[in-house]
């Protein structure tokens, strides 16, 4: 009886121990950071801006897509290796900066253990000094727009929006109310004011999240100000 128990236990532990032989190790190194312009995070909408990591040397090619969070941060669990990081053209409300090391927009990433790396990009516009005030159920946002890329590559503002949502995800898809101002009535450097009246929210909550979005003409992804929690 005792012998049988020992055999059964032995077999089970043998099974468990062999799992280590049968499986590959999971990726163990974390690459994380932010998309920044001069140290300031680029805020975007969720699931919309991605960049690619390529690991050369394999027979078949396939990229690892990393998506950027609302606040411009990203994170990916990876194997230690040498990667090439590429932000595809037409991706994001910015353009890539030529990398000194590669002479192109490709960034070489040597991953050995965890790594924090901010990616410097050049946005077409930045939303400056966003501020939100509340009176009753009206949320008022004031901000200024700064044009970063000027000259031949400059683009126009298509529109600016104030978005208000009941959750932390705030953009053109996720909002309970939004107000819009055409780009033609926005002047760089002067204060722009947008006001939205928050409708009744079920279940009732006494706070909302708000931020300003700016759509650049000819660019699919919008640039935003950070999400701010506003108490009603």
């Amino acid at each position: 009886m005792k012998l049988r128990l020992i055999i059964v236990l032995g077999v089970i532990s043998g099974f468990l121990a062999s799992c280590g032989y049968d499986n590959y190790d999971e990726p163990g190194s974390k690459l994380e950071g932010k998309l920044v312009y001069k140290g300031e995070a680029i805020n975007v909408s969720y699931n919309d801006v991605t960049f690619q990591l390529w690991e050369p040397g394999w027979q078949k090619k396939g990229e690892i897509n990393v998506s950027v969070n609302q606040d411009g941060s990203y994170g990916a669990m990876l194997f230690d290796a040498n990667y090439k990081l590429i932000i595809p053209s037409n991706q994001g409300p910015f353009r890539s900066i030529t990398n000194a090391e590669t002479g192109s927009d490709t960034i070489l990433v040597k991953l050995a253990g965890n790594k924090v790396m901010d990616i410097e990009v050049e946005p077409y516009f930045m939303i400056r000094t966003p501020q939100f005030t509340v009176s009753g159920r009206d949320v008022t946002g004031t901000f200024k727009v700064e044009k970063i890329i000027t000259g031949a590559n400059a683009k126009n503002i298509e529109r600016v929006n104030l978005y208000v949502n009941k959750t932390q995800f705030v953009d053109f898809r996720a909002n309970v109310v939004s107000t819009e101002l055409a780009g033609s009535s926005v002047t760089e450097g002067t204060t722009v004011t947008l006001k939205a009246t928050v409708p009744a929210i079920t279940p009732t909550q006494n706070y909302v999240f708000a931020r300003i979005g700016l759509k650049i003409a000819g660019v699919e992804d919008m640039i935003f100000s950070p999400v701010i929690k506003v108490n009603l």
Partner: protein
Amino acid sequence: MKKYSILLIMLIALGWGCNDEAFLDKEPTNILLNDQIWGDKSLVLSVVADLYDRVPEYQTIQGWWDFASFDEGFASNGGDYWRHKNQDYGYGEWSNWDYGLIREVNLFIEKCGTADKLDPADKAQFLAEGRFIRANIYFELVKRMGGVPLITESMTYDFSGDPSYLRKPRAKEAEVYDFIIKELDEIKADLPKGSGTKSRATQGLILAMKSRVCLYAASIAKYGANTPTVTLPGGEVGIQASLAAGYYTKALAAAEELINSGDYSLYKKKENLSENFANLFIDKGNNPEAIFVKDFKLKSGKVHGWTLVNQPWSQAEDLEGGRLNPSLNLVQSFEKLDNTFETYSTTQANGDYIYFDSPKDLFVGRDARLEGTVMLPGSVYKGKQLDIWAGFMLADGTVIKGDNFGARKTLPGKTAPEYVVGWDGPIDNLEFSAQSGFYVRKYMDLAVGSGQRGVNSEVWWIRYRLGEVYLNAAEAAFELGNKAKAATYMNIVRERAGLVIPLTEADITFDRVVHERKVELAFEGHQLWDMKRWRLAHVVWNGESTELTTNPGKANEVSTRVFGMWPYKYYNPGGANDGKYVFKKVIPAQVTNAHRFRLGNYYSEINSTIRNNNPLIVRNPNQE
């Protein structure tokens, strides 16, 4: 000894068997050989029929669900609610890369070219049909993927270990369109003329297809300017703006040649214009308008279930129906008889409801195509009136409704239970009920039994019809600056729909062109391609949850969610309006998200397997 002699006899028998070549070298009984096929006209016809059948299509009567992917319809079916809940369209959606089929068509063309036992006239027709099918497949590919490798002969691997010589790069988008146009021009003379043949290629079809192909190329060239990032440096995606006028001219010329040939005419057999429009799609006897169809036949195995899956529940011949519900977005797009647009008003200026004696009264005085396309509350189908009403509305605004078809409840002040909802719904979350308040009418068979699973329908699927050709001509003429001509062609189509006040030159705008195609060609599989070529898709389906537009005649109004319009019976015993109908605009409960067509959706993704097998293939734009 005896054993040995038996063995010997067996060996001799086996040996004989081997000697006789005819014994083992038998002709197969399950497949036909090349020689057999290419000597017999009817066998070649079966081969070409199979190829006709395999050309890819999107949005047909054999797949009702695809019509619910955008803003034309609501999918009233448990397994399809996700269409209204998901947000982005996948980059791989609508993609196609069936080079296996192209190889088969190329083999067909090659073998047909060397066949010597066929009558020369038959051979020329088969050859032309093969090339038509190939052009058609390339048209389907270029609509979806942009420029694709143009393979016009069958390629064979030599097993040398290096298949790289078989790799071909993508042609430019314009080159693929030019190839299709060239092929159509070359084969036209070998095809029969006249409107008698409908399920095979004819000269009329060549002209109709040419007008559509040229129009697509032209509008991509012109409206591509609105989406500068939807291009590739090599021209695989995007057409130069300077080519637009040339394509528009060709589109107009092809359409006019067909119109002036007199071989086809608009379908005008019925007095009632709505009935006439509905009949256009189901009348298979001497239909003067249909140019190219996919035909079906009862009791042959080739039938379809469009009527079965979409029949009104109140008169369903089987235990299903009611799946595709046209949206209010579409229904409100049908204009009034004085050529103006108006949304349906359901309330008076003082905020009170407007009371209608009959639910159909809300929809009177509209384009006759409305009732030919959509079954409205109070419409008649198969001789019986539909029963669409969502419940009783009391004087204080409360609603009494049921949660099943024809549910019964006792109304206040009464003692016996009675019906509180129609046998067609609308009931939120109840599949097969008219959750938008409407059922689809186009292509719905009137034959008894067409709603039974064991019978189904033999109504054909019209791929090309003269009505579209008129609109192609109108659009091309408009884009070429000839608004008078555009108005003439558009008025011919509109007159058939009861819009007898002709549009003038000044009325013709881009919005008009877009709108006319929307109402004339709803549920005919044009919407996605039209929105893509006008580069309107990312504007109209932009992912924002906006209210229903109040300007249905405008081309670029956002329409990301499906809306509905529900009738209620007003219950106010003794009151003046008791028993009348009121309407409420609703958004079906299953519609939880807004459609978003991203720039990367304009050309479907060529997946990484294809790109790894052939590194010459460049990726479509905006998909990383």
